[in-house]
């Protein structure tokens, strides 16, 4: 007999013959945040095997995009990561602009930064609340949603829509910022850091919270790189990689902010990274509002948009990681092929690695720390 088999045999003799149990976590389960299904093999409460099943929310966005003009694709991108619609808009528009070789005027770039950072905060807030709720703490969720509501109000004020702005255009923005936005947003930004402190008093140093998240969902930096993990998950593993810093786009190089890096590789540090990122984003918005350049918000585009034939890949730092768009153009008004590199789709790969051999409760914490948006995973 091979050695593992002998060990298994000995183990069985020691513990008695036991059977594992297969349970179906999802597609309707409170902590899968959407329609994600994982077939989990349990030995008692220990997770033996996890097999994720995707595709319950597949809408064929990439295929639909092939039959739309370049501008008509923008509303589709909102529906990818609906928690941060503006980020998707930005990623797509930047990709097409790169294909066309145009640059957005500074004011447009700044407005883009403000919108994407606002939606980053709103996305992180919702994640933190949902994550706390997954671990049984109800109240932080309501506190965080309170601030998120204010951000959604701002998004509605600028774009007319709360979750799916579709406000970006190839070459700039659809409109300028409304005049009353600046003061209201400044007020929010001043009040926001104390609010984050408030959330942190509820969770960060809480003994139960620490015991539930520290060391849970461990994913080392090496594994992160092997699996292609990006975003807060990678930064919680000590990887200093933020596309806003490392490959600046949309004048992110003009802002003074830090890449938040922790080295715990666990759910706790993913939480801390996101909390700190909210503070950093807040800082970016403040700088952008203070130094908002005058001038046009977009370049004038004439006629139907027909980019030259060729292919292009452009990635941005979305709230969940590297959001990339790969577009192949054949010179017509419609993209020949569009591929979305969705960060959560890639990050979700780490789930079996994080969960197997751990407890079922830890699986919920690990799954939650991925920051799942199934609309983006399934596209």
């Amino acid at each position, binding site marked *: 007999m091979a050695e593992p088999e002998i060990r298994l045999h000995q183990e069985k003799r020691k513990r008695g013959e036991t059977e594992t149990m297969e349970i179906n976590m999802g597609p309707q389960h409170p902590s899968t945040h959407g329609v994600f299904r994982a077939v989990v093999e349990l030995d008692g409460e220990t997770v033996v095997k996890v097999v994720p099943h995707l595709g319950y929310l597949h809408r064929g966005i990439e295929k639909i995009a092939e039959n739309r003009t370049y501008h008509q694709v923008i509303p589709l991108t909102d529906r990818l990561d609906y928690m941060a619609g503006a980020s998707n808009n930005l990623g797509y528009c930047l990709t097409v602009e790169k294909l066309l070789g145009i640059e957005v005027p500074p004011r447009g770039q700044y407005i883009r930064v403000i919108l994407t950072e606002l939606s980053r905060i709103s996305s992180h807030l919702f994640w933190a609340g949902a994550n706390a709720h997954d671990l049984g703490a109800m*109240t932080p969720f309501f506190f965080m949603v309170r601030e998120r509501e204010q951000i959604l109000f701002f998004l509605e004020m600028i774009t007319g829509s709360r979750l799916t702005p579709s406000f970006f255009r190839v070459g700039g923005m659809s409109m300028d910022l409304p005049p009353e936005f600046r003061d209201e947003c400044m007020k929010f930004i001043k009040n926001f850091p104390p609010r984050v402190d408030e959330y942190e008093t509820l*969770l960060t140093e809480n003994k139960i919270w620490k015991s539930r998240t520290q060391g849970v969902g461990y994913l080392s930096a090496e594994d992160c790189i092997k699996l292609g993990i990006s975003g807060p998950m990678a930064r919680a593993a000590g990887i200093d990689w933020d596309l806003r810093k490392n490959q600046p786009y949309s004048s992110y190089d003009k802002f003074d902010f830090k890449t938040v890096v922790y080295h715990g590789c666990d759910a706790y540090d993913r939480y801390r990274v996101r909390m700190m990122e909210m503070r950093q984003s807040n800082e970016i918005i403040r700088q952008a509002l203070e130094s908002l350049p005058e001038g046009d918000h977009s370049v004038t585009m004439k006629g139907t948009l027909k980019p030259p034939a060729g292919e292009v890949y452009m990635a941005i730092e979305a709230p969940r990681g590297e959001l990339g768009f790969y577009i192949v153009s054949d010179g017509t008004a419609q993209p020949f092929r569009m591929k979305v590199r969705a960060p959560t789709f890639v990050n979700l790969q780490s789930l079996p690695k994080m969960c197997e051999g751990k*407890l079922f409760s830890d699986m919920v914490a690990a799954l939650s720390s991925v920051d799942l948006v199934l609309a983006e995973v399934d596209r």
Partner: protein
Amino acid sequence: MPESNMDLVASVILILVKIGVFFALFMLILAYVTLLERRLLGFFQERYGPNRVGWQGLLQPVADGIKMFMKEDVTVSEANKAVYILAPIVFVAAALMTFSVIPFGDVIWPATMEIGGRVYNFTLANANRGVIADVNVAILIVFAISSIGIYGLIMAGWGSNNKYALLGGVRAAAVMISYELAAGLALVGIIMTTGSMSLMDIVKFQGGCWFGVIPKWFCFTQPLAFVIFLIAVFAETGRTPFDFTECENELVAGYQMEYSSMKFALFYLAEYGHMIAASALTVTFFLGGWQGPFVDVPGLNYFLPVIYFCVKTFMLVFFFIWVRATYPRFRYDLLMKLGWKVLLPATLVNILISPFTMKLFGYL
């Protein structure tokens, strides 16, 4: 009819009335504690909570009850029918039975009363006291009943042919059994001090004050036991941060997953029943039960102790809800570790130091 028999009849009637009034009031309170919890959670979480049905949502429990009755009563296929149906009954019965030995007042009825020209004696079987059954092994009965309550959860988990429910049932069994041990041993110090297992005696022992201000409650003389007992009842009643048995985010709804209609409502009520029972027990053991200022003043002595008891119990219920709004859920294996490796040795230490505290406070 012999004279003494008439006294017995009078006492039995009083006991039955006591049980009836208690049952009706308890069910009412139970229904309104659900509303209280939802409103308080709303208050803690900066939202309203149910405030639409009736003034301030006061008719919400009625609406919920009607809704529960109207729902279809589904029995899952392949369920073990007998076990499946028995489970909620056992659980709710245990929640109610605990109150049979908890004293909610001192003397609630005059010892003798003249009715129709004849003097009836109401003191037989302690009928005029504020407790349904003043048993001299009340602590043992409380623990026996709460153990039976656990069967309700295990049966629900086993009988409903659902893997999540099974996991919930297994967790319930493991957690509650290990925490009953800690809770039981935490009370040993009290039994040593009072020399009685009757809850009435324990409450009476806690009368009076030191220096006229600090009440002689056991939470001051047995602080370690108080903390351990409080943690243990949190685990036993399955409240946050120890609510693994239902654990919405992991086990969806745990043991009660496959229950609908009134069966579900029974579980729901019984959980609150257990919470109130746990609060009442904590009050009885550690917070002086019905003791309070002016309980001996004639005229006030019939109802003042009852009010004290209710107020103290509701403050603990509030505490339960407050904790739920504040803390995340603990993990199941960590809880077992806490129970066996921390709380159990701590109770033993408490038993060891109890004689010294008794000497210190002059009980020995």
